[in-house]
């Protein structure tokens, strides 16, 4: 047996790299060490020599210096699981790399970057002119040190997907700070306004949603995130018009919600040809292909969610569209699915009653009705039922779909409509929610609802001593002004969208980093204090947003459809909900202002999932608990280790940040519950979403909901879902008054064998059997 050991130094002695000018150069560890040392002044745990030697170990002879630079970034990033400070180091090395790329194209300032990008056809004329006029002020406003705030994952995402690129060379033409200033300039009327908004974004305390970050200031200023398309009419022309509309909306980064409830089901008569319909599935298959075909500027595939009401005759086939078995011509792998559920259905589930499936061609009025009007029409139409099922059986199938695909979101039609500001006049109905179930807006055949979004990073407004309420209010004011601004500057990809948005002027101001705030204040997610803080924050945000919208109305007038809103009758959302108010005097004063001048925006608040912008801001997503103390994110840019820095700080303070504890956490897939050295209250604070009672997430959501006039993207987490758990959970959510819910997150039954934790001795079979006995569901031995 020969045991070979590697002697990397030998092989690497005299390794060469090719410089950008073509010259060869011997790789020098000290040079890499120096490049790293430049960035580590405030990073005491980083070891520059380690990064340098590891980088060289991965290099091959004859690599380019660009490869060397990239490898050093990658190498630093790979150490994040061991020491989170390497995330900052990797981000800074990346920022330096990007900076070099921009400078090498002859761009030395913000205004030059805009001029250069304008020449390449990337920047809109108005923004180019604005920057040219105010070049000196704007150039002086750039804060390059704010790059130091980024974590690696956030900056990588920015560099790969947000920075504008030269159309041919594909090199980035703006630095991260130029990018944010460009976004601000695209929405501003004067330089001081632009600089104020830029500073807010650059501090990562607030970020608009991705379409705004992508497109503001460019030649295609489509900055809205969400489009809600009404169901096509029950005729072929309308169906194909919708395909076209969806494609146009999708092309410019919009996420689509589309209802399909008006289309007749399988077996219904088609008078024109005297044939029978094939139902909705073949049409959805076409939609599926259409959505996948549209590439959103190379950034991602299009995405859409189809909503169906559960009385539709094809509901059972609809629930199978995402199954991974069965006939592929009846599967839609790209579409998301949601149930748009009237209360009558839930009542019958509870009462174990029958449920009638009714063809929309027999009862075309159903999609436009809600509340008692729906209940009456539905009961009348039951005489023409195509099929009768047990309500609980259908509910059980919905739960099965959620458990096996995460899809088939439960959203509640009656509650969504009854509490909406937009349904104040008869004939205005919300027919569906959007791709992420946080937007609830009326639409129709001629009007496609639009919403543009932004989210406050709550973590950036909280310190150990509490919430900085004045800072939070200031952020809300700025955010609402610029969300409102988007409505006028926005490019609308379809005429139906252009018809709706100026009339209603809805915006969706959301929140991210709630978990950061709870960690900072040491509040377990399911504590009373957490509920009251989250509710108070939401009231503050909503109240300030309404005040700002009222101010805008005083300046520019109320939105054109204001007379059709409930606010015009003096009803605001918390009252419709029947909720107590934390700040009654402010609400009373606000109502007086609204009574005299109205509101500039029909809707103001929606809590979006913030998947990408939370990564950029380096905070936890929206209102979600952490999924794990140690996990990875997978995106188009690659894989990124994410470690709970609050936990690491805690462990370091206790002298527990050791390789043994790290391995324990890794082995437990990011749980700290088995770390006996940690006191119970610390373990309780650092529970993961899988370890929290889901009831607490629903209670938190319901408690803040009075102060959300649209809705919230509420994910729920069950690692081993059963139909029993799910049916209990969603019934509870409905009764708690939730308007919508989002994904059911779940976990695989088994995992890939871990490669970097020590092998444990195999458990003896006696132990294995004992385990089974404790867990009779999985034990087959004694049955």
């Amino acid at each position, binding site marked *: 047996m020969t045991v070979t050991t590697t002697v990397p130094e030998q092989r690497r002695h005299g390794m060469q790299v090719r410089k950008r000018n073509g010259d060869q150069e011997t790789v020098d560890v000290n040079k890499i060490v120096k490049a790293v040392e430049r960035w580590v002044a405030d990073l005491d745990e980083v070891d520059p020599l380690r990064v340098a030697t590891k980088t060289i170990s991965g290099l091959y002879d004859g690599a380019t210096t660009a490869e060397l630079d990239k490898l050093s970034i990658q190498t630093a990033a790979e150490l994040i699981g061991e020491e989170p400070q390497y995330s900052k180091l990797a981000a800074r090395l990346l920022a330096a790399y990007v900076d070099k790329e921009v400078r090498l194209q002859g761009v030395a300032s913000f205004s030059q970057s805009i001029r250069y990008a304008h020449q390449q056809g990337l920047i809109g004329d108005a923004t180019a002119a604005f920057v040219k006029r105010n070049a000196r002020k704007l150039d002086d406003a750039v804060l390059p040190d704010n790059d130091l705030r980024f974590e690696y994952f956030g900056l990588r995402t920015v560099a790969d997907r947000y920075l504008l690129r030269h159309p041919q060379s594909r090199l980035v033409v703006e630095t991260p700070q130029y990018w944010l200033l460009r976004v601000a300039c695209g929405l501003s009327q004067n330089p001081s306004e632009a600089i104020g908004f830029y500073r807010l974004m650059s501090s990562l305390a607030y970020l608009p949603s991705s379409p705004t970050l992508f497109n503001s200031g460019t030649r295609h200023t489509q900055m809205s995130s969400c489009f809600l398309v009404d169901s096509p009419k029950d005729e072929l022309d309308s169906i194909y018009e919708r395909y076209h509309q969806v494609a146009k909306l999708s092309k410019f980064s919009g996420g689509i919600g589309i209802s399909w409830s008006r289309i007749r089901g399988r077996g219904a008569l088609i008078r024109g040809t005297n044939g029978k319909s094939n139902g909705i599935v073949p049409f959805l298959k076409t939609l599926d292909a259409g959505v996948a075909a549209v590439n959103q500027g190379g950034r991602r595939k299009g995405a859409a969610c189809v909503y169906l009401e559960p009385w539709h005759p094809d509901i059972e086939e609809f629930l199978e569209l995402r199954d991974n078995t069965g006939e592929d011509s009846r599967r839609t792998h790209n579409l998301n699915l949601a149930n748009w559920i009237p209360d009558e259905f839930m009542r019958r589930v*509870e009462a174990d009653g029958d449920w009638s499936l009714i063809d929309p061609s027999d009862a075309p009025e159903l999609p436009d009705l809600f509340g008692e009007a729906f209940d009456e029409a539905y009961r009348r139409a039951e005489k023409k039922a195509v099929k009768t099922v047990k309500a609980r059986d259908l509910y059980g199938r919905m739960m*099965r779909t959620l458990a096996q*695909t995460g899809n088939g979101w439960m959203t509640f039609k009656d509650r969504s409509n009854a509490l909406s500001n937009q349904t104040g006049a008869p004939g205005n109905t919300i027919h569906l929610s959007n791709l992420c179930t946080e937007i609830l807006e009326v639409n129709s055949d001629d009007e496609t609802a639009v919403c543009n979004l932004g989210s406050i990073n709550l973590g950036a407004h909280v310190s150990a001593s509490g919430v900085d309420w004045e800072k939070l209010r200031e952020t809300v004011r700025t955010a609402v002004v610029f969300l409102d601004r988007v409505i006028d500057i926005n490019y609308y990809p379809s005429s139906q969208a252009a018809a709706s948005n100026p009339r209603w002027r809805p915006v969706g101001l959301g929140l991210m980093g709630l978990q950061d705030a709870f960690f900072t204040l040491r509040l377990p997610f399911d504590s009373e204090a957490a509920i009251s803080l989250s509710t108070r924050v939401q009231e503050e945000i909503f109240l300030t947003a309404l005040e700002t919208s009222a101010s805008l109305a005083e300046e520019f007038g109320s939105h054109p459809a204001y007379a059709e809103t409930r606010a015009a009758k003096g009803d605001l959302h918390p009252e419709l909900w029947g909720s107590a108010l934390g700040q009654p005097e402010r609400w009373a004063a606000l109502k007086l202002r609204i009574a005299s001048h109205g509101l500039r925006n029909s809707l103001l608040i929606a809590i979006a999932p913030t998947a990408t912008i939370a990564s950029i801001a380096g905070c936890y997503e929206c209102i979600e608990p952490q999924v794990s103390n140690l996990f990875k994110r997978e995106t188009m840019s690659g894989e990124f280790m994410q470690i709970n820095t609050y936990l690491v700080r805690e462990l370091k303070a206790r002298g527990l940040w050791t390789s043994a504890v790290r391995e324990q956490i890794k082995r437990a897939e990011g749980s700290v519950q088995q770390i006996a050295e940690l006191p119970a209250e610390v373990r309780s604070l650092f529970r993961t979403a899988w370890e929290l009672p889901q009831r607490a997430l629903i209670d938190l959501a319901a408690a803040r909901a009075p102060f959300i006039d649209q809705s919230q993207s509420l994910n729920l987490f069950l690692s081993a879902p059963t139909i029993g758990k799910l049916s209990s959970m969603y019934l509870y959510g409905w009764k708690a008054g939730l308007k919508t819910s989002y994904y059911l997150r779940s976990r695989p039954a088994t995992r890939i064998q871990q490669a970097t934790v020590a092998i444990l001795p195999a458990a003896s079979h006696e132990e294995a059997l004992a385990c089974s006995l404790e867990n009779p569901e999985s034990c087959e031995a004694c049955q």
Partner: protein
Amino acid sequence: MTAVSTHQMLLDPGMDLTLRPMRYPHFFDRFKDAIKNTWTVEEVDLHSDLADLARLSPAEQHLVSRLVAFFATGDTIVANNLVLNLYQHVNSPEGRLYLSRQLFEEAVHVQFYLNLLDTYVPDLDERTAAFSAVENIPSIARKAEFCFQWIDSIYALRELRSRADRRAFLLNVICFAACIEGLFFYGAFAYVYFLRSRGLLHGLASGTNWVFRDESMHMAFAFDVVDTVRQEEPDLFDAEMEQQVRDMLADAVECEVQFAEDLLVQGVSGMSLADMREYLQHVADRRLAVLGIAPMYGSKNPFAFMELQDVQELSNFFERRVSAYQMGVSGTVSFDDEF
């Protein structure tokens, strides 16, 4: 073949048909867990990879083409051994349930890599060449020879009567778990993970992720069989066998290193041959550890990116298909379950 109901041990010849009382419930649990992991090839979108392939450097393209050529036949070889050697000797109906399930999974993997090659290699002649890699590409042929040698080692055995027969069988099981699934596939795994950690070839990565989730279970089952046999017949596994296992793994490491030499010949930034060798030795040591054998190399894992596969994944649903869902969720509607 006679149905023997009086047999005592897993490797006793026969065709036991009795599931109750169940003698090896842990095998049955593995069978049920495997079903929850069902996935289909249609769920994997490979077309997004084509743009990435065009972006790769020639050295990386070479790496990928060799890798998929290995995948083209790897799973078929494992399936053959399962049918020809494992199924008949593991005399437990619940164990055979698991093996039947494994066979299905190997078939899905074969289909996945078939799809992959058809997508990646549009040229028909090149495609044919890729599928005959076991004959044409020396670095792959060498690995195939290693596999065939071990398939053949017990192919002639119809029943495991003698101690020598059973030892030969154990070596075959260990070979396929530790060397072929545990080292050849695991080595390939590292290349895919390397690419994936850099955001390349999502389609390959997501399909391979599911393949390796299955492979991890196959390996665990095989080691479970070995453990079971060792408990039932402790004298089979002695110092001589330990030495045979070490020799076999050393041979496998050399096979895989010469494959790595071929893959990395043009220089891939971030993955040096020295690191790959160290990684393979490290993996071999881990396989020995599972069997309770002292490490042979004492090598450390040089690939920090492998840590990424040990932690939970969280994908943005609009970018990646999420693989975290289970099939066969059970229960009935109820309103008072805890959640």
